């Protein structure tokens, strides 16, 4: 019988909004988890995240409202372009 992890857990998420100080509001894909605030640490490829980008977020079990973006997932530009298109309308 498996147990729930006590330490950081990686979940898929989508960037919703870029906030100041390398902080992002992300939508967590696991049902019922909702949104979280996530920061990025280092990693130049993560410094230019845009709304719509697919990322992997590391969450701590004691505070699932906050996390750390650890990497991009798949092609980030697809979501970014779609988001730009949407914004320009």
């Amino acid at each position, binding site marked *: 019988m*498996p147990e*729930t*992890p006590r330490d950081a*857990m990686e*979940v*898929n998420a989508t960037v919703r909004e870029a906030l100041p100080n390398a902080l992002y509001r992300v939508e967590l*894909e*696991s049902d019922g988890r909702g949104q979280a605030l996530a920061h990025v640490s280092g990693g130049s490829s993560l410094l230019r995240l845009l709304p719509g980008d697919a990322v992997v977020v590391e969450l701590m079990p004691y505070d699932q409202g906050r996390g750390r973006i650890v990497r991009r997932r798949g092609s980030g530009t697809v979501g970014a372009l779609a988001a730009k298109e949407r914004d320009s309308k």
Partner: protein
Amino acid sequence: MSVQKSWAELQKMHRACGIVVDTLVALEEAAVPGVATKELDRIARERIERAGARPAFLGYRGYPATLCISVNEEVVHGIPGQRKLREGDIVGLDLGCVVDGFFGDAARTVAVGKISDEARRLMKATEEALHSGIAVCRPGMRVGDIGHAVQQHAEAQGYSVVREFVGHGIGTSLHEEPQVPNYGPPGRRERLVPGMCLAIEPMVNAGGPEVRVLKDGWTAVTADQSLSAHFELSVAITRHGPWILSEPYPYAAAETEARHA
């Protein structure tokens, strides 16, 4: 750090794990179209008690049954009930028992009647992922190497591994240190030492890794409703490599008394 078991304690683990796997074999035969999941739970409890053990899950954090039965898109922790198995279902059976103070824990996903090739492929990949995790269980390796091996194997076949549940150390309690995730980078987490006992249990989804828990507070299902499979074995780390505790000690008998640590 997990408790290192003595040779005598490993023998007790061996007994508990043997009872669990013998019961799973009987349950696999009993999992035919039309049987209620509750009936499988009854068989599990009866066999465990007849073997002189007692169910490990019953009452654990309020869990109401002996067996976890997770059908198709259910990942783990399905509660037995009136639901009847149907031809083509794949059914995760997760069972634990305690005897003489030591716990055994194992799981397997079984086919009900004839199943699709897709389901069979998922089950095969999950069982292989478990064994690729077991293969790295040697002193000097780390817990992260297990998860890495499992994840590599599952993802190479286009599947995903569940993050929300992890394997665990096992011994005088059902869940001991350390936790054993089925994912993550190699070379991290606790070092494996002889006498450590781990329940390694990949949960592999045909679709995405996301899961959610139903309103009963237990049953976990895949968020995208894709099929999920679950295989688990309890394994001891010995000086010579892994010992799957439900099987006979695999190394030369002369070495069985080897003291660890």
